[in-house]
């Protein structure tokens, strides 16, 4: 059910993404050095990841298994035979002078990942051309402000396992691209493949974009493809693509230059300025002289191995959403909100819903109370002090009519801040269930004191009774509005006859 977003523009924006994610291993792809982020420079290096003379690589099994898991989650075919190749280029963060990557026989290809906008704006199945396993480079640090002539090289990151995921140009708007990236990140985090932390560089995105412009003669004109780099958040990906589409439209109107009339251009996203700038490309830099890595042996993967990885793989977000909708009869919107918060929050919700025995109410409390306060105070749902049983207790008392929902919210907030039990809080707030006798006495006083309202009600305007409820709550904050209303109406009816 692919639907193109209805855009005002006289063109379609065509986007393909290239994503690099670091795999969650303890050690690097080819050596035993730790992959911990943020250690002092050059403290996690050895002869192999420094590319010292005579050093050799040996493949990390865990990295390969995680890579297969990622590929399966992206519905890719797993190759029965795969090998590694050297991608040769000179750069100081690449100490061997080549990157061990995969060229003609990646371990997986031909997959897809669907992204559905919960509000129904779009639904897109994005093809995955290939996923391959390669090593990361180190970091180059250049501080112009310090006016340093030299660039500092830290090789702690060099050799960290990376999955490169290349999508088909199937995305049709910057919004779709951002949503798809969110879905991809959610998937990889759910499956424990990567923490996808963009700030720490464990997820990096490059985008290829151009415009398809219908011509009067029915032909589709295509603008030259531009690759955008240095986008350090999904938001900047969306902004960069939006800017670039507009820029290409301007350029098209001015030049009418079409795809194939010039070499592929690379532009860098300048976030503060909110624009993309051309990046200088060395003419021979694209000649990577790939050839089979002679220091590694090929890898074969059997059906059984694939099945085993698939079995060990958890439920992906898309599946989980439908499961929640069907099990707890909640809306697609609700399931989307819950699932997008991660596995632990979903677990919290399922526990709560089970205790309450009802999904919609549980989902409302999750979104209006649990999630809201969680976002306010920050932290992990796992450490959230108010556990599902407590929330279920409050919801239960509301259902019993001990107090109304707004009171329930106050109690939830108090339990959270004071850390005391629901029991205590209810007591300290003087919330005791009002007895039927007290209620009747209270209502009789109100009826006596409000002849006008009584008359209106008798005149058929039952909603006038609302006035009485308000007064009743002033006299005794613990009364249940519904009960007050019912009792008053009964008493007034009795007055009549």
């Amino acid at each position, binding site marked *: 059910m692919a639907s193109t977003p209805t855009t005002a523009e006289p063109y379609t924006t065509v986007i393909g993404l290239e994503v690099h994610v670091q795999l969650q291993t303890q050690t690097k792809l080819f050596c035993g050095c730790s992959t911990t982020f943020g250690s002092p420079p050059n403290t996690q290096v050895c002869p192999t990841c420094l590319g010292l003379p005579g050093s050799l690589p040996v493949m990390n099994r*865990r990295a390969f298994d995680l890579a297969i898991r990622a590929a399966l989650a992206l519905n890719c075919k797993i190759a029965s035979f795969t090998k590694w190749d050297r991608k040769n280029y000179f750069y100081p963060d690449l100490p061997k002078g080549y990157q061990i990557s995969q060229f003609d026989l990646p371990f997986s290809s031909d997959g897809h990942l669907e992204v559905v906008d919960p509000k129904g704006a779009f639904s897109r199945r994005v093809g995955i051309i290939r996923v391959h396993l390669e090593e990361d480079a180190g970091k180059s640090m250049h501080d112009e402000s310090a006016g340093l002539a030299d660039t500092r090289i830290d090789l702690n990151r060099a050799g960290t396992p990376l999955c490169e995921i290349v999508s088909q140009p199937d995305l049709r708007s910057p919004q779709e691209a951002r949503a798809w990236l969110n879905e991809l990140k959610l998937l990889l985090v759910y499956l424990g493949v990567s923490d996808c932390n963009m700030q720490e560089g464990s997820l990096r995105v490059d985008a290829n974009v151009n415009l398809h412009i219908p011509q009067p003669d029915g032909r589709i004109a295509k603008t030259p493809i531009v690759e955008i780099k240095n986008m350090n958040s999904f938001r900047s990906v969306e902004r960069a693509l939006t800017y670039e589409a507009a820029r290409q439209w301007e350029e098209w109107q001015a030049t009418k230059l079409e795809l194939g009339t010039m070499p592929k251009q690379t532009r860098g996203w300048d976030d503060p300025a909110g624009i993309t700038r051309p990046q200088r490309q060395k003419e021979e830099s694209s000649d990577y002289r790939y050839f089979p890595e002679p220091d590694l042996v090929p890898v074969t993967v059997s059906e059984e191995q694939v099945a085993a990885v698939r079995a060990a793989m958890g439920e992906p977000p898309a599946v989980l959403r439908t499961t929640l909708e069907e099990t707890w009869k909640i809306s697609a919107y609700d399931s989307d909100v819950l699932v997008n918060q991660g596995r632990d929050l979903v677990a919290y919700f399922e526990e709560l819903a089970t205790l309450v025995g009802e999904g919609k109410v549980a989902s409302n409390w999750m979104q209006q109370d649990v999630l809201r306060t969680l976002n306010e105070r920050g932290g992990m749902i796992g450490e959230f002090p108010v556990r599902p049983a407590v929330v279920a207790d409050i919801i239960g008392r509301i259902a019993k009519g001990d107090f109304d929902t707004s009171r329930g919210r106050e109690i939830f907030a108090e339990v959270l801040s004071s850390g005391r039990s629901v029991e205590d809080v209810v007591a300290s707030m003087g919330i005791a269930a009002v007895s039927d006798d007290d209620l009747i006495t209270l209502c009789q006083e109100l009826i006596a004191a409000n002849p006008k309202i009584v008359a209106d009600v008798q005149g058929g305007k039952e909603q006038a009774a609302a006035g009485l409820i308000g007064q009743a709550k002033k006299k005794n904050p613990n009364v249940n509005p519904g009960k007050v209303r019912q009792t008053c109406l009964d008493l007034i009816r009795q007055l009549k006859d």
Partner: protein
Amino acid sequence: MSISRQEVAKVASLARLALADDELDLMTSQLGSIVGFVSQLEELDTAAVEPLAHPLDAKNVFRDDVVKPSLSTAEALQSAPRQDGECFLVPAVLGDSGAA
């Protein structure tokens, strides 16, 4: 089989080798004759032959994901032409190669 001086210069820049003019001249003639010599392989019809990149038939060699001690920063930097005690120092470059 000969290679142009210009072509040799392009290869030298790809290989990051600064060659003096006379070196470039000599390299052009020598590469030409060597390439001519190796081109005798063209005599063989290999259309049906699978390439053999490696003499071993071994496959699936892995290591466990277990941390091993790294070098000390001092050891890592001990042979660096320029370093500041923490990092290797090289002439100015902007940005990572990003392992694209």
